[in-house]
């Protein structure tokens, strides 16, 4: 499906012969991604913070006050998911549009995106709960461990299967409640596959307390490369090497510090 999806993006963004409702949605999602990055850079560009730290009321540098968890943490998580996960999901959004009757295309694509984000929000909530377990661990140790876990996950069969599932298509009913339900199910299934594939890298993101924009950009590049590459196994292996290298650097600098 990946090529079909890739063609779907270019098709959705190309100026069509007939009015194209999917183009507006694709541009809307693109604007949301851009806005999320602008917010991220403006929030983190001059400082650092972590989602889990925010959830626990840790000090932070930025516009958001400390000690307002978990609401702000979830907002930040949502912003990160939009910035980091939606770019590689654009082909699936376009695919939904291409398989839907023209007059309900926008609704279908938005429904899919909403269901997809819902899964990631659930994952974020779980992460915030679980993060209490490592509240007392030193930050550089935590980041190093998260990077090692992410490296190990990249090398598993489950990771490859999850990434493959990100590319599975789904039968979409043409209209009515059947259509809405199938779009929701597709969004949930695609989101679940994406969480299974990328959870470890997002844990890295959640515990990174410095150079936040750097980590966001790097992990976004890795996630996008895996999902959009014609050679995903190669991309996975490359990600694993990079994550392992980062773990070594973080570990060594932690020891030196």
């Amino acid at each position, binding site marked *: 499906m990946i090529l079909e999806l890739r063609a779907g993006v270019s098709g959705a963004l190309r100026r*069509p012969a007939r009015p194209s409702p999917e183009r507006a949605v694709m541009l809307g999602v693109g604007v949301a991604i851009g806005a999320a990055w602008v917010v991220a850079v403006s929030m983190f560009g001059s400082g650092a913070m972590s989602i889990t730290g925010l959830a626990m009321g840790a000090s932070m540098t930025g516009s958001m006050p400390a000690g307002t968890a978990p609401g702000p943490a979830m907002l930040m998580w949502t912003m990160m998911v939009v910035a980091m996960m939606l770019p590689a999901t654009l082909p699936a959004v376009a695919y939904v549009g291409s398989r839907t009757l023209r007059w309900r295309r926008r609704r279908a694509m938005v429904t899919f995106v909403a269901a997809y984000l819902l899964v990631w929000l659930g994952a974020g909530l779980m992460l915030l709960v679980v993060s209490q377990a490592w509240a007392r661990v030193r930050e550089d140790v935590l980041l190093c461990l998260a990077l090692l876990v992410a490296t190990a996950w990249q090398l598993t069969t489950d990771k490859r299967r999850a990434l*493959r599932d990100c590319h599975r298509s789904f039968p979409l009913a043409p209209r009515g409640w059947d259509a809405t339900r199938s779009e929701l199910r597709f969004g949930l299934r695609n989101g679940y596959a994406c969480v299974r594939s990328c959870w470890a890298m997002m844990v890295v993101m959640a515990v990174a307390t410095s150079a936040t924009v750097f980590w966001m950009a790097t992990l976004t590049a890795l996630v996008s490369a895996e999902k959009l590459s014609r050679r995903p196994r190669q991309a996975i292996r490359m990600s694993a090497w990079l994550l392992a290298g980062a773990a070594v650097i973080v570990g060594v600098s932690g020891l030196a510090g």
Partner: protein
Amino acid sequence: MNTSTAPYVRKNVWTLPSADPTVAEYSAAVATMMTRPASDPTSWTYQAAMHGTHATSTRPLWNGCQHGTWFFLAWHRLFIYYFEKIVRAAVVGAGGSTGWALPFWDYGAGGEQATLPNAFRGAGPAGHPNPLHVAKRRPGINTGLALPTAVTSAARALARPGFVGTAQFGGGITGVGQFSGQYGEVETTPHNDVHDFVGGNGGVMADPQQAAADPIFWLHHANIDRLWYLWSSDPAHTDPSDPRWTGQKFSFFDANGTQVQHTPADVLDIVGQLGYEYEGAPPAPPAPPAAPAAPTAPRVAVSSPGPPASEPEREPVGGSTEPVQLTGVPATVEIEIDERAASAALAGSGGTLPDHVYLSVSDIEGEQNPGSVYGMYVNLPAQASPQVAESHHAGNLSFFGLERAREPQGDEPAHGLAFTREITALANKLVSDGEWDGTHVTVTFRPLGLIPHDQPELSHALPDDLSSDDPPVTVGSVTILYG
């Protein structure tokens, strides 16, 4: 690969003179290759595994076949070209014909030619097994029943104007991959259909990871290669000039077991570049231009990403509301054409139908290929005779590669099978016959069966052994699209 000698001639296996040694030499060469160790690239086991194998430990170039992709034809042309060289070396080594060439099975000619060639049927006497015989074939194939015209005819494929695209001749744009889901017309019918029809449920030919171990595989693919040659010989048809296609490298083993590498650009001229021709085929067309993407040849030029120029924009106007399960018996899907979507798609045309009408069958999944081939019929009346069914025939649905699509190897994403057929001519006929009202379409799936070769009128008849015991296959979506 250039050759200056007279080209080898690939002949029709069914019209060889009785004294012609081609098939006997093939049989002896197959037997010789079967005695070679599996580690030898010129062995039968190794060659079959290059197409696909269930072996868990693999060797160089195993599992390399290309399906559901615009590389399907070029990869298989090279595959059988080097196999032919290996067989020829074995034939010559045994003192046989130096001009040996792989025969083709032209099942599309109908009649007796639609049956498995005689030399491939019998198991052979005790102690002297026939190397060309495979027991795991569809019941009836080895006893001389014929493939119906519905699955052997390449007429639809040869009539496609373009090479690139899922409703065109050669397949959609993909990367290198064994089952990439972008099937061209010729890959579906007759290629996939014949694989399933010969193999049947659990048969060798119906399983891409065993198929090349059936000696008839190579004659089947020689015919598919011949069909590509015939299609390309039409001056109105153009092979891809996209560098992503012409420049893709694939590797094979020559008769010495040495690895060689070629691209599709190396195989466009079978006489000039490869040194063979087909009996009964028209003369080779002029050699293709060396430089890709000439601006004067835009029909299938696809130098930029996205659908090629020959593929009009497609607009879904109606689809099935729930998946349908196929178990070996007829099944019907009801589709409501959405008035708003159809009106938008027809805007400005003023007609009942647009320029192009497509039938798309997608998200096809199952645990096991049942080996069945279904005819797909649009607005088929109940209890229709085979003749009436033929007049409503929109194409076939078969499941070659179903398991591999679900559990791919290597870099492919998992997916259900998907096929798109252009049904414009059929829809226009149904409109003129008053059988297409533009609001409601039924698509009927009817299993096709083997028939006596002297009763071609039964091509669209339901099989005598109709039963619902097939391993189930789920068709997720059936969609009508306007273009």
